[in-house]
């Protein structure tokens, strides 16, 4: 369960991302890409209960282990 006071966010570590392109194809509502093809988080990355599952799926498909889900 997501605590009402603490937000859960998804972030991409730009140093680890190599533009494999998995996140934005699996979860286009959460991730986009820049002009070099690197993955970028759309908006501030705050996740709801539903989008948390999607973010986890993207995370589990990133070959570079560049996606992190953080509780603030």
């Amino acid at each position, binding site marked *: 369960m997501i605590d009402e006071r603490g937000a859960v966010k998804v972030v991409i570590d730009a140093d680890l991302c*190599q*533009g*494999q*392109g*998995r996140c*934005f*194809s*699996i979860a286009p509502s959460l991730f986009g*890409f*820049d*002009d*070099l*093809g690197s993955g970028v988080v759309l908006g501030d990355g705050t996740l709801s209960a539903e989008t948390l599952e999607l973010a986890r*799926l993207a995370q*589990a*498909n*990133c*070959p*570079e282990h560049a996606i992190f889900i953080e509780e603030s």
Partner: protein
Amino acid sequence: MNDKSPVVDFATDWDHTDPEWVNDPYPIWEDLRLRCPVAHTDRYGGAWFPASHAGVSMVAKDTDTFTSRSVVMGNGRPTDEDLPAPIGLAPPITSDPPFHQIARKLILPAFAPRPINALEPQIRALCAKLLDDVVGQEIVNASQSYARLIPPAVIRQMLGFPEADTEKFIEMVHVIVEAIDLPEEERIEQFVPVEEYFTRQIEDHQENPRDDLTTFLLNAEIGGEKLAVEHVFGTMVLILVAGIDTTWSAVGASLWHLAQHPDDLARLVNEPELMSVAIEEFLRYYAPVTMARLVKQDVEYLGCPMKEYDWILLGFPAANRDPVVFKDADKFIIDRAENRHVAFGLGIHRCIGSNLARLELRVAIEEFIQRYPTFELANQNDVTWSQGQIRGPRNLPLRILA
């Protein structure tokens, strides 16, 4: 075929061109993973093969210990003369940091999702035309008549070479691709007409600049200076060599799989929404591309005494079958949800054409199965596989059932 001595033990004397490896490498890799997991050979002047995902991953990301100056394993070694630093023969794949990043950033925008996705209608039309060309044939060689012809037509267009040259271009590309395994002198000889053709195209683009990759490269600058001619030429060669038989192999291997697994074929036909996960499983299970690195200096690595200029064969296809990372790694699961495959490599040299490769693979499969919802192998014995670091079927006769 080759006249080399047959391999008795792949753990101590492996050769990736041995017929057993060429025909079916997967049991060899599984055995090596359990026994080694880093295999060695004295062939090619000394080479190592990490069979595990962990080993492949470490080497791919360690640009301090390993150099990319040559990524195709052979008997020779690059010298300063034939690979002028820091550009390398085919930047950025043959470049190391820090020049690598500069050369890579230059061409990344051209292969980013936005410009690549815009090519979809043309690729779809191309696939449809190739299928029209074989209409009515009971047996279609899906490798020679279909998969082989898709990538060069796309690359020719991206480079902005004349459409009328498509056939000529396809022939030339295959000369380059096949010449990779030849001895140095023969390779240089094979390259002459290609170099002449490219030089003419470069001159034409200098006189008549237009919106294509060749003009883009000619106008590109590093630190306020135009690229060296060798850089432009090297990157064009890279785009050809890396963009043609790789995707040809992926399309061919995927159709080879579907021809033998009617359940998977039926699911793809009936559940088109599966296509994106299926494509990733095709890429995992039949990853076509193996790369190579050279050891920079003597080092103890992965428990092995590696010597300066030893090769490391970087088996991304083997890493993709490692059960430590993939559940049921030896099973093709068309709707595999979690799939951290490394078909496009890992780290800073991630395949720059991955967006294009995925698009071509998806569209090629979609168009083929839409036209032919059921097909099977015409004759298993007629299927042949390529030899070397790119693996895919080179003859693939399919019997069309409907």
